[in-house]
C-alpha cells in the first residue's frame, strides 16, 4: 500500500481509562492503515477494544475517565490528535462519520428524523432549510427509505429498527465522508434486515467511494464485506491480514477459535465450538501473552513474555510465539 492510497493510518494508539479501581488499557498500542476505498474489518469479542478504537479516531472517548495517552492518527495528511477542538468539529460528520450499534437509542427521540439528517447538512454544507430538506429526502431515497417525503417528518419511535439504521446511514453519508466508521451496524437488527443493510452499505460505498472501518463480532459479516481484517483481543491486535489469507490460513489460536465457532450449514456439527474461558478483566491481565489462559497451545514462553506481532507471510501479522522467526 503506497502512501497516497492510504486514507487513515493509526500508529501506536493507546487509549486508557483511569478508574477508581485502576488503569484500564482499553486500546493498547494499536497500528493499522485503511486504504482508500477499502473496507477494514475489526473483529473480536465484546470488551476487546474495537469500539474504543473507533471512538478514539473521532476523539469521542468520554473524558474523564478515558484519555488517548499515545499514538498518531493520520487522516488526509493531518494528525487528528494535533487538531484543535474546532478543527475536529469540522471533520466529524463531514469527512469522517460514524454509525452506531443501537439504532433504537442513537437517534434523538424528541426530533423528527428529517431534522436530525438536515442538521448535519446545515452544519457542514451551509445549506439553508429548504435545500437541506431536499438533500435529506434525496439521501432517504438513496438509502432506500420508502415514502421519503412522508417519513422525513416522523419521529424515531415511529420507525422500525431497520429504517432507523437507514436513517443513521443517510445521516452518516450525507456529507459524502472519506471515511465511514460503522460500529456493529447490524447487530441489533433482525437477520433479514441485517443482510439488507450490509448490501446497502456495500452499494453506497461503491457510489460514494469512501473507506469504511467495519466493527463487528460477526466473522460472517467480515467475510462478506471486508478487504482487510484486524483481530483484536484485550486492546491489542492479535492477527492482521487481508480477508482471504485470514479465512484460508488463520494463524492465531484465537482467530481459529473464532472461525470454528461459526455454525457451518454444510457440515452436521453436533455442537458448536466454544473458546474456553471468558474475556479477561482488563484491570488484571495475565503476564505474557494475554490469550494464554484460554489457549490450547500454551507453552512456557507464552506465560512469561508477551509476543510481538510477527509477519509470517507478506502483510499477514500474528501475535503468537508459535510463529516466531
Amino acid at each position, binding site marked *: 500500500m503506497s502512501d497516497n492510497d492510504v486514507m487513515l493510518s493509526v500508529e501506536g494508539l493507546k487509549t486508557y481509562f483511569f478508574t*477508581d479501581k485502576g488503569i484500564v488499557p482499553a486500546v493498547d498500542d494499536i497500528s493499522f492503515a485503511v486504504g482508500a476505498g477499502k473496507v477494514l474489518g475489526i473483529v473480536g*469479542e465484546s470488551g476487546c477494544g474495537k469500539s474504543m478504537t473507533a471512538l478514539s479516531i473521532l476523539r469521542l472517548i468520554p473524558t474523564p475517565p478515558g484519555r488517548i495517552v499515545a499514538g498518531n492518527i493520520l487522516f488526509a495528511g493531518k494528525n487528528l490528535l494535533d487538531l484543535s477542538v474546532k478543527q475536529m468539529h469540522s471533520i466529524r460528520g463531514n469527512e469522517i462519520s460514524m454509525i452506531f450499534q443501537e439504532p433504537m437509542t442513537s437517534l434523538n427521540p424528541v426530533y423528527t428524523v428529517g431534522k436530525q439528517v438536515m442538521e448535519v447538512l446545515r452544519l457542514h454544507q451551509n445549506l439553508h432549510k429548504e435545500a437541506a430538506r431536499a438533500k435529506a429526502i434525496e439521501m432517504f431515497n438513496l438509502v432506500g427509505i420508502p415514502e421519503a417525503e412522508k417519513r422525513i417528518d416522523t419521529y424515531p419511535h415511529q420507525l422500525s429498527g431497520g429504517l432507523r439504521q437507514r436513517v443513521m446511514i443517510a445521516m452518516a453519508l450525507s456529507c459524502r465522508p472519506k471515511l465511514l466508521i460503522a460500529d456493529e451496524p447490524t447487530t441489533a437488527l433482525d*437477520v433479514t434486515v*441485517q*443482510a439488507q443493510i*450490509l448490501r446497502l452499505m456495500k452499494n453506497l460505498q461503491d457510489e460514494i467511494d469512501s473507506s469504511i472501518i467495519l466493527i463487528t*463480532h*460477526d*466473522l*460472517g*459479516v467480515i467475510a*462478506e464485506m471486508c478487504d482487510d481484517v484486524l483481530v483484536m483481543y484485550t486492546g491489542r491486535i492479535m492477527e492482521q491480514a487481508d480477508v482471504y489469507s485470514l479465512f484460508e490460513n488463520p494463524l492465531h489460536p484465537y482467530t481459529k*477459535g*473464532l472461525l470454528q*465457532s*461459526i*455454525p457451518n450449514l454444510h457440515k452436521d456439527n453436533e455442537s*458448536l465450538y*466454544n*473458546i*474456553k*474461558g*471468558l*474475556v479477561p478483566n482488563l484491570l488484571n491481565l495475565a503476564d505474557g501473552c494475554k490469550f494464554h489462559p484460554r489457549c490450547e497451545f500454551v507453552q512456557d514462553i507464552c506465560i512469561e513474555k508477551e509476543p510481538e506481532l510477527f509477519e509470517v507471510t507478506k502483510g499477514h501479522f500474528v501475535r503468537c510465539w508459535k510463529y516466531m522467526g
Partner: protein
Amino acid sequence: MALKFKLQKKDSGMKKKKQALKKAQESFLQDLFRAFRKNKLAVLGGVIVILFLIMAIFAPFIVPHDPYAVEIDLQFYEPSSKYLIGTDMFGRDILSRIIYGSRISLIIGLIPTLISMIVGTVLGMIAGYYGGKIDYFIMRLADIVLAFPSLLLSMVVMYTLGASLLNIFIALSVVGWARTARVVRSQTLSLKEKEFVEGARAIGVSKQVILLRHIFPNCVPSLLVLFTLGIPEAIMSEASLSFLGVGAQPPTPSWGLMVYRGKEFIFSAPWVAITPGIAILIIVLAFNFLGDGLRDAMDPYMKQ
C-alpha cells in the same frame, strides 16, 4: 448471516457459585464503601450525624444548665462565657435547650420515618406483587395522600388529634408512607419478572416467602436511601409544625418551637430565634449529605 457465537462457558457446581456470590457481596460492600468514602461531604455528614446521636443520647450529662429552669432575672442574656449562646425570654440557657432539643429531633426523625417506611414497604410490595384491585386501591390511596400539600395534611391531622409531640408521630406517618409505597411497588413490579423470582415461583415457593426472601432484600438499598433522606424531612416537618404552633407545646425544647417563641424578639434578641434554626440547618444538611452520598454510592446497584 447472523452467525452469532457466544464465548461462554457455563459454570458448574453449586459450591463455586456460592463462593462467587459471597465474593460478589464482599466486593459490593467494598465498592460501596469506596464510592462513599470518596464523597467527602457524605463522610462529613456521617460524622455530624454520629456527633448528633452522641449529643442526643448523653444530653443530661453534657448540658451546662437545666434547660427548663426559668430565671426571670436572667432574661435575654447575650451570648457570654457562662451562657454560650445566651438565654431566652424566660432566662433559660439556649445551648442546653438546643442540646435537649436534639433528642426530640432524633426521635421525630427516626420513629415516624420508620413507621411510614414499614407501612409503605408492606403496602408497596402487596400492591406490586398481587396487582389487580388491591394494587389499584393502594395506589389510588397513595395518589390521594400525595395530592395534599404535605404540611397542610399533617396540620389537619394535628388539628384533629390535638397538638402534641406524640400526635406528630401519627401525622408524619400518615403523610410519609405513600412515597415509599410507590417506590417499593415499582421495584416489586420489575423484580417480579426477574428470573430468580420466576424460578422460585416455578418450584412452588409461597408468595409470602418470595416477597420476604427474594423481593424485600432487593428493595433494601433504595429503602436505605429513602430512610436516610426521610429523616431530615421529618425533622423539618416537626420544626415547621411546631413553628406554626400546632406541634410540640411549651416548654418542650423543640427547635422549631424555639424559633417560633423567639421570633417576636428577633429585633431585640436575635440569638433566641436564630440559634435553634442553625441547629436544624446543620442536622438536616448532614442527613442530606449522608443520604445523597449513599444514593450516589448505590446508584449503579439500584439501576441493575
